[in-house]
């Protein structure tokens, strides 16, 4: 490993003991010997297995649920429906006052996406739970569904989620998150060229090798130990406390060992219902997604659409940028209002542009609820922005890397969301990239610095 000390030599601290030094990982010895305990490695006598009855429809009213045949299936111990869940309607980010509560632990009267959990079956074996789940009869009245964000935003579109009342998240700023900086129309009017392009992405599944799940063991004193692979331990603890109306002191969460997460295990999905099952049966409970559930049911990265309009001068300066971003939350919010908001702050990219207009929408559709994944809210935006940068450079006949040097933000520049730039290193990264990729740029760009403005 090489630590370049030539950059920022006059402002850097040089008494670093850890940075630049390889350190062994504390968890590796457990991994290579097979001793690391993942949640599914916990086994308890008398442990029950939980399987979900899931909606086969994208959008439907539930007329009735009949569990009588399933209850008679050998090995079945308990069947749970919405009425068994103390606080059935929740939303994860209510903990940081991002409401309304809009999602059911078990569907109550309606399903809003294909795969939504409707009935939970607890049985002595995984096989008995699976077979009994197939015997639960749910009578559905299928409703019109909407799968496209722009269709969902049109008047007269099917209403996906009544808890919102419209097919977008209502921010305190209105129907979208907005950034307004300078005068974008004046910027376009004075530009040498205008380029407007649209970029779109599909949902992406994290596909961790270990599927989502938890094992719950009653401690015998109204307290429950939950071994989980959640990536969001305290979100899960606090939301479980709300959903089950149980004080946190009754919930003992053990986690931190995650067999691949990538953001796919931050939702609060398996723990509340498994703990409820353990509470109502007095038995340990294992709820683990099958591979099929992991791929079909767990939240993916949101589908996004990004429309970018830029005004650019022949000398390479971008003078105006207008971005409209759409994040497909699917049927429920989960972390998407936050993701869309992040996009609003991020969309100008690491470039200093005097006139910026940004709208980002968090849209509800009848698709699988999306949520966190590695830089959600900005990753697809970065793809769109950087493809756009290449197109702009080509439009004015300029080298794409030099074009980025001209527009790169540097310390002291005001960003569109009115945070002054501090600690920028884009210029220096591009200088290293230029050398590493053997993509030479003019000497004046190699002499630039993020730190000393105008150097």
């Amino acid at each position, binding site marked *: 490993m090489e630590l370049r000390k030539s950059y920022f030599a006059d402002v850097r601290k040089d008494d670093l003991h850890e940075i630049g030094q390889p350190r062994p990982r504390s968890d590796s*010895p457990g991994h290579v*010997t*097979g001793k690391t305990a*993942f949640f599914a*490695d916990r*086994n308890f006598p008398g442990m029950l297995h939980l399987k979900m009855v899931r909606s086969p429809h994208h959008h439907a009213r539930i007329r009735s649920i009949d569990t009588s045949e399933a209850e008679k299936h050998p090995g079945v111990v308990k069947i749970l429906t919405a009425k068994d869940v103390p606080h059935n309607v929740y939303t994860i980010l209510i903990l940081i006052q991002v409401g309304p509560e809009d999602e059911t632990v078990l569907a109550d009267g309606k399903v809003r996406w294909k795969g939504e959990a409707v009935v939970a079956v607890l049985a002595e074996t995984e096989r008995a739970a699976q077979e009994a789940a197939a015997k639960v009869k749910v009578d559905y009245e299928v409703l019109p569904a909407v799968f496209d964000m722009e269709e969902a935003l049109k008047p007269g579109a099917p209403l996906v989620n009544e808890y919102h009342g419209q097919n977008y998240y209502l921010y305190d700023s209105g129907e979208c998150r907005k950034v307004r900086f300078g005068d974008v129309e004046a910027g376009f009017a004075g530009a040498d060229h205008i380029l407007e392009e649209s970029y779109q992405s599909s949902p992406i599944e994290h596909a961790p*090798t*270990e599927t989502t799940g938890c094992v719950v063991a009653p401690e015998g004193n109204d307290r429950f130990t939950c071994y989980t692979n959640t990536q969001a331990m305290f979100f899960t603890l606090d939301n479980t406390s709300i959903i089950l109306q149980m004080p946190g002191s009754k919930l003992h969460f053990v986690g931190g060992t995650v067999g691949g997460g990538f953001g796919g295990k931050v939702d609060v999905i398996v723990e509340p219902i498994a703990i409820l099952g353990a509470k109502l049966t007095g038995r340990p409970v294992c709820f683990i997604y*099958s*591979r099929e559930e992991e791929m079909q049911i767990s939240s993916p990265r949101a589908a996004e659409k990004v429309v970018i309009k830029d005004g650019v001068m022949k000398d390479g300066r971008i003078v105006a940028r207008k971005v409209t971003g759409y994040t497909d939350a699917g049927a429920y919010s989960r972390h998407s209002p936050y993701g869309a908001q992040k996009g609003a702050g991020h969309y100008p990219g690491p470039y200093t542009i005097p006139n910026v207009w940004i709208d980002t929408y968090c849209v509800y559709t009848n698709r699988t609820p999306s949520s966190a994944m590695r830089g959600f809210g900005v990753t697809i935006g970065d793809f769109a922005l950087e493809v756009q940068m290449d197109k702009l450079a080509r439009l004015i006949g300029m080298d794409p890397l030099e074009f980025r040097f001209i527009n790169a933000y540097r310390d002291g520049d005001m960003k569109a969301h009115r945070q002054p730039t501090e600690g920028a290193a884009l210029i220096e990264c591009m200088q290293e990239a230029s050398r590493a990729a053997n993509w030479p740029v003019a000497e004046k760009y190699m002499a630039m610095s993020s730190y000393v403005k105008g150097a």
Partner: protein
Amino acid sequence: MAKVPVQFTLNGSEKAEFIDSGTTLLHALRDKIGDTSPKGGCHQGTCGACSVIIDGELRLSCLTLVETCNGAVISTTSGLSEAGVLHPLQRAFLDTFATQCGFCTPGMIMAAKVLLDHTPNPSRDEVIEALSGNICRCTGYEPIIQAVLTAARSNSQNAA
């Protein structure tokens, strides 16, 4: 459900159990015998996390019925180190940062062990081929390939 008697050698120890007919070796090892080093990632033979060695051959324990293992000699990653001393493959996986979440690691090590048992000095392409049935979602594979090549080199140095 009818139970069937099953007897095999696991990591040098004799095991004898009555097990439900139709049980996979993966379930038998994890839930009955208590060796949780093979992992269940897909239960359909596609991820390799459940890989074990049966009579010297690499096998997917999630697709192997335990009834077919009578009299077999089975090795798993939990039995690889001897007297607390790591096997060269385990050492190499540690030293080259070839583990991240660790879920695929026991299966990877089993696949690598079968390779090195048959081919002590594999080429990079042979390593890639040998690991092609094992999915890792964290590392991007490169540190794992390096670990196997490193272990092969340390084996040949020790032999010399």
